[in-house]
């Protein structure tokens, strides 16, 4: 009996510790659940976005040509194909002709030099999006076409082979294909496609591409061009922006961020951080920051979704300190902009944004990443 008080004391202590531990565990669980709720998109919104994707894909099916193409263009066909393949319904070639026909359409435009295009003026653009879409099919039978496309892009990259030395502002860049003049838009698509098709990380193409990507960033520490400012954003090509002299703008800064990440720069890299800071300070889903009116708006949404997804942060804190869930913001915006027929289109038709098939494909690809 003399041990009874000790026993009682031990039991009380054990109960207290256990309760406290349970409380701590519950609290931790509550906290992590709350954090998760803050970063994961609202389920209802996500379902709504998935319905928007379905409506968009339905529009594309309704407007697909007999030969499986969209807008009689290899690039647009490849983008629409990618929209289907990466959608939450995960369409595959087994789902029918609406997938197999565009694949065949793309393959029927493989050229001797490896490019995949039906026209001379968009060779590298079309090739890049085509091999990305072919890779997304997961069909190993297209490996040869993908390899050929990779080689075309690597050969088309401006380097010593074209007589350009490393100090030339064009070095490491890729243009549309009908001219040597490179730009970040084409370079980013080429880099994205080479990453998607698993080009060897040790391939010198990455290093060369980084030289050009650096020269498009307004960051004098890593950009040796005299015009370079220091806001961390990106411009269209070294020394030129279609909007204002060499000013940074949204579409290109997201393209630049994605290019840096895919070409080998890590998240802590100061160039990446500078680009991310620009994006934070100009955060918007209402406009393409730095571009007038609605110019290039859907290109911006597409690049925005891809770069934010690759960067891997669910929340972004803008320049004023407000937190944003980029997925939710993008989903709400794109849902609000969808036409009753399921399509998206820009009333400002520059850069092909008057083509419903193209803009719908871009928007679906962006939503696919947002709901992922």
């Amino acid at each position: 009996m003399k041990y009874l008080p000790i026993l009682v004391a031990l039991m009380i202590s054990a109960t207290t510790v256990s309760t406290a531990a349970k409380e701590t565990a519950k609290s931790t669980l509550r906290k992590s659940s709350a954090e998760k709720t803050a970063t994961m998109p609202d389920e209802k919104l996500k379902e709504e976005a998935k319905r928007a994707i379905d409506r968009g894909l339905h529009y594309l099916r309704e407007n697909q040509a007999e030969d499986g193409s969209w807008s009689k263009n290899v690039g647009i066909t490849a983008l629409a194909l990618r929209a289907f393949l990466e959608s939450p319904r995960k369409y595959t070639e087994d789902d029918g002709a609406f997938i197999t026909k565009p694949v065949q359409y793309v393959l029927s435009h493989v050229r001797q030099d490896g490019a995949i295009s039906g026209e001379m003026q968009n060779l590298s653009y079309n090739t890049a999006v085509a091999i990305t879409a072919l890779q997304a099919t997961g069909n190993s039978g297209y490996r040869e076409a993908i390899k050929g496309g990779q080689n075309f892009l690597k050969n088309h990259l401006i380097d010593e082979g074209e007589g350009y030395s490393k100090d030339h502002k064009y070095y490491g860049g890729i243009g549309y294909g009908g001219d040597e003049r490179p730009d970040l838009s084409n370079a980013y698509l080429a880099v994205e496609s080479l990453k998607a098709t698993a080009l060897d990380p040790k391939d010198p193409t990455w290093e060369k591409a980084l030289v050009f990507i650096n020269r498009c960033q307004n960051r004098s520490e890593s950009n040796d061009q005299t015009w370079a400012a220091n806001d961390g954003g990106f411009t269209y090509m070294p020394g030129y922006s279609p909007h204002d002299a060499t000013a940074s703008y949204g579409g290109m800064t997201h393209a630049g961020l994605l290019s840096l990440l895919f070409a080998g720069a890590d998240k802590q890299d100061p160039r990446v951080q500078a680009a991310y800071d620009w994006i934070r300070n100009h955060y918007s889903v209402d406009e393409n920051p730095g571009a007038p009116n609605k110019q290039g708006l859907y290109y911006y949404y597409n690049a925005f979704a891809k770069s934010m997804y690759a960067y891997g942060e669910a929340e972004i804190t803008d320049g004023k300190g407000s937190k944003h869930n980029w997925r939710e913001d993008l989903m709400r915006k794109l849902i609000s902009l969808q036409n009753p027929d399921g399509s998206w289109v820009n009333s400002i038709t520059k850069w092909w944004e008057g083509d419903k098939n193209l803009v719908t494909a871009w928007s679906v690809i962006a939503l696919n990443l947002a709901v992922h």
Partner: protein
Amino acid sequence: MGRGNPLVAMIPSYLLGVGISLLMTLDFWRSGESGPPAHAMFLYAIVSTAVGYVLCPFRTSVLSSPLLAIFAWSSGMAISVIAFWLVLPVTFPLPLVAWLGLAIGLMQTTLHLWTHVIGRRFSRAPAGVLIAALTILCASSPVWLSPWLEWSGEHSPLMNLALAMSPPTYFAVMLDYDYLRSPWFYKHTAYAMHRYEYPSSGLVTFVYGFLCLIAAWIDRRCEKNMPNEPFGRLQHDT
């Protein structure tokens, strides 16, 4: 000496073509590039055509027929392009150079034939100015059409038509060179921001060839109506 010999008549044009080629080549070598890039070849084709049009001496040709003189001059320019570029260690393959030579020759023939035909009605000087003005107007259409492109709508056939009618487009399609996305055009016109399609090289060759045939046919008709003036009004120019 050599009156009526087309080969002799080709010599001035051949020398001119080689001269222009040489200047362009020196420029490439100075820039340290391994071969002439597409934009340089494109510029070369335009310069050759412009200079060849202005300097064509067919009024003083040794040939008895102006049509033959035009043909000799244009062929000389075409041959000079092909021959000169082939002896250089350039990166362009033979078919490409041959097509470019054909394009320069055919463009020269078209311009000279129509100047000659219109010159029958008026005189060569105003006819030359008229043809040159029309050519410049068509060639610069991507620039002056630019403000209207916003209203023409996406993928307008008018944009493609204007592009097809522009003489430099002929050289561009032969070289697979998208000149509308070259730095100058990209910065100064809205054309490259919209969807456009170049015509096929076969179609453009056919159209220019057809234009030549029409001009030659009109010339023959005029000649029949003026049996005593084998050279038409050309001989009376001052």
